[in-house]
Structures are given as structure tokens and as C-alpha cells.
């Protein structure tokens, strides 16, 4: 049964990696419920294992997004500093809380973000399309921005639109505060933080969806380790299960990354919302002890 068990774990992890990479979630949103509900793992072990796998998923996606210049490294770096503090705090708190509380927060967060993603249009101000790339940060052509003098503007080529997309993030201070929250939820729930980072960057900062998902993956690849280390050191990560999960997630993430490059942002957004609503229902039902749904 060992091989079959490992294979089923790897299959679940591959599904999580595929969705996580495609949507910029990090994979944990699928892995945590699957491992705790289907495989019967303690929630804290599922969260710890998920966080280690999230590092693999986000790193894999980030490598691809960095290669295609879709991720905004400067914006990611600024948001990652506060997100890492949040992830560390979330990990320390999460290892001390009961699973019912973690599950309830999980469901509520997913539902709220899902609603926001569905009812709000993709942000457009400051975004432009042109056949040629605009001067970006680090090229001497775009110094100074609304973000207090920091150059956080981004530009990337969108194959679906056949043009270069340029944008300037706005409301960066509010984005910083919400990134701290995203990091905290990451360490608390083992979900990477993309569920908050992607809509915050898209809706609040005005970053195009594709760049938001790519930048989110890069942020998660930098910050999830702060929470993962807490769970690892405190004994909530089984190296064998983690290894199976990482390999499964890695394989799934490769497929998701390739698909994300060719799909238009609107389709990604719709899939993103559906995934959020489904997982919200499952998590809330579990927290409220509704046996039929959970």
C-alpha cells in the first residue's frame, strides 16, 4: 500500500500544483483540504506540508515568469518584506491554534475574495498596450512614481493580446498593509497568500491580472519559507510526505505555468473565482460541522 498511497498523494499534489501555478495561488488551497479531509492528516501537518510544497510551486512558477519578464520583481520585493513578517507571525500563531478556527478563517477569506474577484472589473487605469515595450524600472526611463518615489512600474508582452502591456501600481501603502495580511494567512492556513495577493494587486494596485498572478508567485516564493520553517522546526512536516507532495506539485505546476501564458486574463479570473467559491463552501461546512457538505 505504500506505493499506492504515495501515488495518490502525488496525484492530489499534482492537481494542487496545476491550479496553484495557473492561478497564482501556490497550490496550498487545494492541498490542505485534500490532505486533511481525504487523506486524514492532522490539519497542522497538512498546513506544514502544504507550506513546504507552496515554496516548490511558487519557485517553479516564479522561474518561468521571471524568464518571460511577466513578474514585477521590484513590486514583489517591496510587498514581500511585509508579507514575510506576516508569514512568520502566521506560522507562530497557526501552530498554537485549534484546527476549527483555522478552517473557519480559511472559508471566510476564500468567500470574500471570490466575491470581489467576480463583481469587480479588471483594473485598467495606468495600463497601456503597445507593440513595443515601454522603458521600465532599472533602464533609466521610468524613475519616479506615485509610490513615494519608488519605481514600481512594469511592462511585459502578452501573447494573448499580441502587445506589450505597461502599468503603474497605485495605492502601494494600502497594498503593503494587505500584503502583511496575506503573509499572515499564508503562515496560518498554508495557502501561500495568492488568494489575497492576486486580487489586491489586480483590484487595488491596478496591476493587470497576468502580471498580478506572476508577481504573486514571486512574492510567495520569497515569503512562504518564513511560515514553512516554523512548521518544520516544530515537527509538523514529514519529509517523506513532503517529498511526494513537492514532486507532485512540481509536475502539476509546470502544466499550469504553460497554460497561464496563453490563456487570457479574463478566463484566469473566472476559474479563480470558481475555485475560491468551491473551497469556501467546503471549509465553512467543515468549520460548522455540516457533515453532508464537508
Amino acid at each position: 500500500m505504500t506505493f499506492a498511497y504515495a501515488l495518490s498523494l502525488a496525484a492530489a499534489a499534482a492537481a494542487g500544483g496545476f491550479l496553484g501555478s495557473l492561478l497564482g495561488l501556490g497550490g496550498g488551497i487545494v492541498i490542505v483540504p485534500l490532505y486533511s479531509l481525504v487523506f486524514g492528516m492532522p490539519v497542522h501537518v497538512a498546513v506544514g506540508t502544504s507550506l513546504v510544497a507552496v515554496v516548490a510551486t511558487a519557485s517553479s512558477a516564479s522561474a518561468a515568469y521571471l524568464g518571460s519578464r511577466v513578474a514585477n520583481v521590484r513590486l514583489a520585493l517591496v510587498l514581500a518584506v511585509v508579507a514575510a513578517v506576516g508569514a512568520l507571525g502566521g506560522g507562530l500563531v497557526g501552530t498554537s491554534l485549534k484546527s476549527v478556527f483555522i478552517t473557519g478563517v480559511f472559508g471566510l477569506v476564500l468567500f470574500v475574495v471570490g466575491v470581489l474577484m467576480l463583481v469587480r472589473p479588471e483594473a485598467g487605469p495606468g495600463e497601456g498596450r503597445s507593440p513595443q515595450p515601454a522603458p521600465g524600472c532599472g533602464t533609466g526611463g521610468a524613475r519616479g512614481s506615485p509610490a513615494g518615489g519608488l519605481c514600481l512600474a512594469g511592462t511585459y508582452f502578452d501573447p494573448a493580446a499580441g502587445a506589450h502591456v505597461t502599468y503603474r501600481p497605485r495605492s502601494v501603502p494600502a497594498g503593503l498593509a494587505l500584503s502583511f495580511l496575506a503573509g499572515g494567512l499564508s503562515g496560518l492556513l498554508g495557502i501561500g497568500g495568492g488568494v489575497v495577493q492576486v486580487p489586491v494587486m489586480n483590484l487595488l494596485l491596478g496591476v493587470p491580472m497576468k502580471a498580478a498572478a506572476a508577481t504573486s508567485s514571486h512574492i510567495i516564493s520569497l515569503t512562504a519559507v518564513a511560515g514553512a520553517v516554523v512548521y518544520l522546526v516544530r515537527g509538523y512536516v514529514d519529509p517523506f510526505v513532503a517529498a511526494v507532495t513537492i514532486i507532485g506539485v512540481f509536475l502539476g505546476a509546470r502544466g499550469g505555468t504553460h497554460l497561464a501564458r496563453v490563456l487570457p486574463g479574463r478566463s484566469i479570473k473566472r476559474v479563480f473565482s470558481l475555485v475560491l467559491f468551491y473551497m469556501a463552501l467546503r471549509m465553512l461546512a467543515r468549520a460548522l460541522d455540516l457533515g453532508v457538505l464537508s
Partner: protein
Amino acid sequence: MDSSDDRVYRRLARALRVGLSVSLVLLASGLVLALAAGPPVAEGPAAPLRPAAHASGLLLAGVAVLLALPVVQAVLAAFTYWSQGDRVFGFAAFGLVVIQCLALLAARL
């Protein structure tokens, strides 16, 4: 001439690819050895799997390499931005390194 961002993009992408490859080789080797060692002590879907002792080292090394990647990324970004004279982002990246290292200490409390 490359911009500082071009160098950061290239260095981070390369570090991630190399690190992930090393980590995956270690993890895959550990898994093969663990599965070849036979069934676990306890059976059942919820029971923890116990790989052979010689596989544990490889598995732990693979996880360690994976978790070191974010630190390597932050160090590379700090060094690149700082060497290009972009002190703000160099300092931000360095701050990230400090927080990542702090997590290891805080977890032991």
C-alpha cells in the same frame, strides 16, 4: 548594457532552476530508496510513512535545499541591486534576508 532589473531577472531565474533541479534530484532519490526499502511500520492512509534511515538524509537534504532557495533569491537580489547603486531595493532585499533568517530562530522559541 543590461539594466539592473535584467540582471536580477536572469540571476533569480537561473538560481531557481538550478536549486529546484538539485532539490528534486535529492527528493526523487530519497523517495526511490524509501519505497525500495519496503512497507512502512504502520499501515493505513492516515498513518505516517517511515522511510529507511538512509533515505531520510536525502529527503531532508532535498527539503533543506528547497527552503534555502528563497534566501538565495533575496541575497542575490540584495547584492545585484546594491552593486548597481539601487540602495532602496538593495536594502529591502537585505531586510527580507533578515526576516527569513529570523524565522528559523523564532521557530525554536
